[in-house]
């Protein structure tokens, strides 16, 4: 018998106004499933498939405009069937107050916004404990410290006095998990708990979930759109599509022997992402970035902080016709580097050379040879300008063309990005996210730039849309031979599109090389850690994958150190790593900044020495 049993759950949203016969939007239809104690059940599906709605319906967290009709819902022996629309919610709410946080707990997607910013985390944990167990204040605090420890926050006692904004995203999520565990719930619902986190942190989080299940025997409902996450964590999988349950089965069955068409397409799409890029670059150097650094001084606020170096002594080049992928976790300086390449920011030290000339960074005299595609297509388009205005603006500013030529150019550009020339009259709100990003790309391409800088162009988009945009960029690569600097935190995306990649950590590029070589045989310990945290949509492989030795999670304080930025987190750190900065060592097409590859570590090498991975 299951711990949680759900029979025939239906959820419908209506927007307040009833039209005759029309009943609003059905988010979940006829959903029935069970979850056993100690079981990790993955719920997978793309956004809008109703997975989150179903989870919120279990806890009764849906807004009033949601109509829930449910054949029955039980947790253990307790009946938690939500009342039918129109019935009184009073009894249900009273019953649920004892269930929420106590029997069923929930972990939310965005850890930093789901904690109250003005309340100390210790109090946010202790509050839940005291609410359900009516213990003393001091006992609750002691228990909260224990919980933090269990969730992998070291020195919980002192961390409890901190506010959420003082912690990293991963730490905040650990606090969220500590809150969820505070009353030893029988069921833990995790709604995309790792989606907002960096790959390496995500990996640690999944390990934490696994450990919690082993230690406490709680059941977990794990909602995710990421098949890799599901494959590496879950015992059983529910595939949701369009509000219905498409397929249900053990993780092996679903991944190796999918029956439903939708599951098959999902898996095929995930496999597609594993592909390596086919594009090859030319020989000529188009862009050279040499020893570039950028400091930011704390401005405005009182108590001026010391200059923080966000990008440190970065050197790389991009060849004509190739796509150079830049990958690294959030806050490592990728976007700052992109801004320097486009000339929006001037480097504090070093130079950015485009075809041997320095880029002008004067405002108004923007460099039209380098254009940028921005991350969020919803905010980077002016909502009060039509598409035509937006596309014509750069032409008017930079090129001497007649109105007729401008019109033709805009029309042909829209055709190129797969939109209709008639769309030019419309405003951005008329377009979906994917279409908006196409407009963003069109805006960048209309000046026929020599280099296209794409700063996380797909990370704000849904998976299928990501796929479309990536395919489109690939098309551009082969048809127009564009040169591209592609920035992303998502390894799969970078791998898919770039011929060479650079791995960035804490403002430094730690490794560069051709995508294939770096992926198959990472040299730098950080690259290795990063790659080992990529989750493949294959349960057996995903479980076999081992992490590399690492020290405890640290916020990017590494920036302040004199030595190697990764030394604090590196399991292979030598003594010199903490005192000196490793120089970049070059081996054929690859460069790696690590002492393990330096002559002082490997000994004097002859010129034809073939370097292999040292770890």
């Amino acid at each position: 018998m299951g711990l949680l049993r759900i029979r025939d759950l239906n959820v419908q949203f209506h927007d307040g106004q009833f039209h005759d016969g029309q009943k609003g939007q059905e988010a979940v239809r006829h959903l029935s499933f069970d979850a056993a104690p100690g079981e990790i059940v993955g719920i997978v599906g793309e956004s809008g498939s109703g997975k989150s709605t179903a989870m919120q319906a279990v806890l009764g967290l849906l807004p009033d405009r949601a109509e829930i009709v449910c054949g029955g819902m039980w947790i253990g022996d307790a009946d938690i069937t939500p009342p039918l629309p129109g019935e009184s919610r009073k009894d249900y709410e009273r019953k649920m107050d004892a269930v929420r946080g106590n029997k069923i707990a929930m972990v939310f997607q965005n850890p930093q916004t789901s904690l109250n910013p003005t309340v100390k985390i210790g109090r946010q944990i202790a509050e839940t404990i005291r609410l359900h167990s009516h213990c003393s204040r001091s006992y609750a605090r002691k228990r909260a410290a224990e919980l933090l420890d269990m969730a992998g926050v070291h020195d919980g006692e002192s961390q409890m006095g901190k506010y959420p904004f003082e912690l990293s995203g991963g730490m905040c999520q650990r606090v969220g998990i500590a809150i969820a565990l505070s009353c030893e719930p029988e069921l833990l619902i995790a709604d995309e708990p790792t989606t907002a986190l960096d790959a390496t942190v995500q990996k640690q989080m999944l390990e934490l979930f696994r450990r919690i299940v082993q230690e406490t025997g709680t059941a977990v409902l794990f909602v995710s759109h990421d098949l890799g996450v599901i494959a590496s964590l879950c015992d059983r999988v529910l595939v949701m599509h369009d509000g219905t349950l498409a397929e249900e089965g053990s993780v092996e069955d679903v991944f190796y022997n999918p029956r439903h068409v939708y599951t098959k397409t999902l898996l095929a799409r995930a496999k597609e992402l594993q592909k390596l890029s086919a594009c090859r670059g030319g020989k000529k150097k188009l862009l050279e970035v040499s020893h570039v650094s950028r400091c930011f001084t704390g401005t405005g606020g009182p108590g001026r902080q010391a200059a923080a170096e966000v990008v440190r002594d970065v050197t790389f080049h991009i060849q004509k016709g190739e796509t150079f992928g830049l990958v690294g976790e959030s806050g490592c300086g990728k976007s700052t580097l992109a801004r320097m390449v486009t000339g929006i920011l001037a480097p504090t030290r070093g130079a950015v050379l485009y075809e041997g000339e320095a880029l002008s960074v004067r405002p108004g005299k923007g460099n039209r040879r380098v254009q940028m595609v921005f991350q969020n297509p919803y905010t980077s388009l002016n909502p009060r300008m039509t598409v035509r205005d937006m596309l014509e603006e750069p032409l008017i500013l930079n090129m001497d063309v007649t109105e007729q030529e401008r019109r033709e150019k805009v029309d042909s550009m829209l055709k190129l990005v797969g939109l209709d020339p008639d769309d030019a009259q419309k405003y951005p709100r008329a377009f979906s996210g994917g279409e908006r990003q196409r407009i963003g790309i069109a805006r960048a391409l209309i000046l026929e730039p020599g280099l296209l800088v794409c700063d996380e162009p797909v990370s704000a988009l849904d998976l299928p849309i990501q796929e479309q945009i990536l395919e489109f960029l690939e098309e551009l690569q082969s048809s127009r031979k564009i040169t591209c600097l592609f920035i992303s935190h998502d390894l799969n995306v970078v791998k898919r599109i770039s011929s060479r990649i650079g791995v960035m950590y804490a403002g430094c590029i730690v490794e560069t090389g051709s995508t294939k070589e770096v992926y198959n045989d990472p040299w730098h310990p950080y690259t290795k850690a990063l790659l080992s945290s990529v989750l493949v949509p294959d349960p057996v492989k995903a479980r076999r994958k081992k992490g590399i030795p690492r020290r405890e999670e640290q916020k990017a304080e590494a920036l302040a150190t004199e030595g190697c930025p990764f030394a604090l987190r590196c399991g292979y750190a030598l003594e010199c790593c903490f005192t000196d900065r490793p120089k970049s060592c070059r081996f054929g097409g690859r460069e790696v900044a690590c002492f393990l590859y330096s002559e002082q570590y490997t000994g004097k090498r002859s010129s034809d020495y073939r370097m292999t991975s040292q770890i």
Partner: protein
Amino acid sequence: MGRYMFKRMLVGFLALFVLVTVSFFLTRIMPGSPFQSGNVSEQVLSSLEKEYGLDKPAAGQYVVYLGNLLHGDFGMSYKKPGVSVAEVIGRAWPVTAVLGFLAILLAAALGTAAGIWQAVTDKKAVKGGIFLGTMLGAGVPNFAVALLLDLLFGVKLKLLPIAGLSGAASYVLPVVSLALYPASIIARMIHHTLGDELGRGYVALARAKGLGRRRILLTHVLKNAWLPILNYIGPAAAFLLTGSFVVESIFTIPGLGREFVTSIGNRDYTLILGLTVFMGIVVIGINIITDILGAWLDPRIRRTCR
């Protein structure tokens, strides 16, 4: 935080200096003289002006005034014989301050309560009623409110005194008419910010923890919803504490606002300047207090301002 406060004070003093300078020369540019009235002869006028040093060039007068001010001396009133400016302030400000303070408290309490009620209630009638009330409160000017209240409660119902300040009951009408406008603004802001805050992730988490709606509202949401209000309440408090001429005139209250307006009519140079400087100090002081309150409520400000 300390350094930040020091900086704020310094800027405050600078602002005060600019204020004194500008208002000093503005009063001198004004046509007329403190001693000019129908039955004063030219001779008497010039001798009076000479006695008070008004025949000297304005720049010289300015230096003398500034010197006195630095010693904390606001000077003597030109029109009220034997009364110093400090005495006028000492008499009028407590009256204004009590009224203003009560009005702010009332506005904050009333506005917050109405805003919350409007945000959480399911009853359409209550929602609409509060909306209408706050629209009226924000739209009707306070002299109209004061007169209407006076007419209704003072003249018709004879419940409350019409004018003057004698006993607690006489405070009710002026305080209410002062508080109505800021209360309406606060109610509308609270309604708005509560709507925003209630949709945030931490509210969903608090619900998932099992906290009841009332508790979420009081322990989690209200504080965050109040933060933006501080930006409004600072200037509003400054406005109320420096006295409202209109309301003070209607209720014949001997407050700062009334003194100020009459002093301008009288060309009472020292009194105008003294009151201006004093109000400047109050406004700057209130802004600093608002900053401290903000830091106290919001740890994000507190931790970054060290």
